[in-house]
């Protein structure tokens, strides 16, 4: 007990349980398992709900075009098309624009502009989708009908996508509303990603006599490419699942049209608009079947993203 010589190891105080550590472990463990459980339960419930429809139509549901509550014929083909088209077009337009915004805000904009413009972009992300949809009804739809669609029809009318008469609802306004919706998300993630590029690397490039653009293209973008892919997929997931804004501007058409000017519908839009007023068990089950398809599409998008991210990281030689 005398403190003159260092105490031998056997006299070390006995290790006492650390409640903070244990508590954190339990809390984090429960949260992690809980989220897995939630996904599993949710999937089970949706599939269970959809079962009558799955049993009746099987996989042919995927390519059947009928949606008739009176005759009890249901199929998802047109809705899958509507969802895939509107989401992919939205992502195709939004991704380059959003990445450019992220670059601008992190590298190119005058420093005094960065914070206020960045805040505005984040604000755009905070606009409720129903408000965006309202804007789509009041402003975007009529504008497209009067000014854009007639011209597109004149120039590209020979392509079925741009055939038919202009209207104020349809796939085109839906895709544009989705584009506006996902730009701020992807832009603010891209901005964070570009800000995370080590200053060492940027300076290394500039010190070799690269211009800022060459630095961005050769160092910054490759460095964050995995993250950019993930950001774009997040945007895609958001677009796939958006129901409200889409159903406000897409028209909810029951008849298939190849033209993006004509009313159409998406999986999410159909579920949101018909579930409450469903007139039969089979219709309810079919709506749940749509949800199953939507879940699967999101899952596929996510897994694809993971694979791409992993491949990029391997190519970068374990940079992360």
């Amino acid at each position, binding site marked *: 007990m005398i403190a003159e010589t260092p105490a031998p190891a056997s006299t070390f105080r006995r290790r006492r349980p650390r409640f903070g550590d244990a508590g954190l472990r339990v809390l984090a463990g429960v949260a992690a398992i809980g989220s897995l459980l939630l996904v599993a339960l949710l999937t089970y419930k949706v599939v269970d709900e959809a079962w009558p429809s799955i049993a009746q139509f099987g996989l042919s549901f995927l390519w059947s075009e009928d949606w008739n509550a009176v005759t009890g014929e249901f199929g998802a083909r047109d809705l899958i098309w509507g969802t895939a088209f509107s989401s992919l077009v939205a992502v195709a337009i939004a991704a380059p624009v959003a990445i450019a915004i992220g670059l601008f805000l992190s590298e190119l904009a005058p420093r005094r502009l960065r914070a206020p413009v960045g805040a505005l972009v984040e604000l755009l992300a905070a606009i409720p989708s129903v408000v965006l949809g309202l804007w789509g009804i009041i402003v975007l739809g009529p504008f497209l009908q009067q000014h854009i669609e007639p011209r597109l029809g004149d120039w590209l009318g020979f392509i079925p996508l741009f055939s038919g008469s202009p209207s104020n609802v349809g796939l085109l306004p839906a895709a544009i509303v989705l584009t506006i919706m996902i730009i701020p998300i992807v832009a603010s993630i891209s901005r964070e990603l570009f800000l995370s590029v080590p200053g060492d*690397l940027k300076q290394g490039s500039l010190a070799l006599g690269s211009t800022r653009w060459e630095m961005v293209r050769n160092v910054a973008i490759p460095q964050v490419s995995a993250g950019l892919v993930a950001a774009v997929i997040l945007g895609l997931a958001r677009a796939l699942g958006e129901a409200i804004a889409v159903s406000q501007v897409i028209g909810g058409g029951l008849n298939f049209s190849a033209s993006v000017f004509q009313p159409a519908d998406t999986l999410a839009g159909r579920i949101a608009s018909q579930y409450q007023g469903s007139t039969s068990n089979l219709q309810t089950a079919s709506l749940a079947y749509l949800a199953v398809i939507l879940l699967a599409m999101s899952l596929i998008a996510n897994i694809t993203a993971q694979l791409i991210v992993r491949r990029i990281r391997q190519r970068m030689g374990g940079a992360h």
Partner: protein
Amino acid sequence: MSTVSEPDRVESADAAEQESTAEVVQNQSQANLGELAAKRTPVPVGDREVVLKLDDVTVSYSGSAAIKAVSMDVFRRHVTAFIGPSGCGKTTLLRSLNRMNDLVPGAIVDGTITYHGHDLYDAGVDPVEVRRRIGMVFQRPNPFPKSIFDNVAYGLRLHGMKDRLDERVESALLKTGLWDEVKDRLKSSALALSGGQQQRLCIARALAIEPEVVLMDEPASALDPIATQRIEDLIGELKDDYTIVIVTHNMQQAARVADMTAFFSVDVSAERGGRNGVLVEYAPTADLFIRPADPRTEAYVTGRFG
């Protein structure tokens, strides 16, 4: 003329190793530094050609001067060392020589810096072109997360020097003594190299685009003693072809590698409590360490200050 003869180099290398192993880096006696410095053969004054001329250069960040009123000449194919305590502005000054300070918001360079008589800060001068001729190696090795080959080829591709690409890459790696170590794995990631190899790769990357001047900001401070010595040996070899300016915290390093040494200090007595870096003394390395003209230099090199 200015190369160190072979036995001398071996000796100084031994000295370097002893010091590093004993980890006596700072507070070295003046006699020891003098011995090291005395081995630097003085360069005949007539052979000197001025590459960079600094005239009353002040670099300020958001209004406050990090380093003030520096006038000095940097000579062709010499190694010039900047030494001094932390915060004396030596890195800031170094970074103003290839306009890397342009990237720091609020940084302003006053006075004139000329490169072969051309004002580096003239409105018509493209900083990209300046950095192409005046390369830079940083404190921490910063290879790109690309292959070894692509790291060295990076600048070559930027500047359209794509003819004989393989040859140029090989030559740059040979200059830095890295070729034999990496020639069989040019396609593998540069990040797999050791810290010392990474730093030599960064030097090779800078040399590949054939700059005239190479600025080095404490290039060995993140490296172990052996790797440090290799970098120092390398600097000695590169001097035949390049003009080198090196910032170092380590006085022995300056004494070992530099022909000319500039000692900077912090001037706290400046107006209203400002802390400005100032150039105290600039002289041939041997003179600066053996016969410092300024009492502040003497205090620093004898370990009484800093």
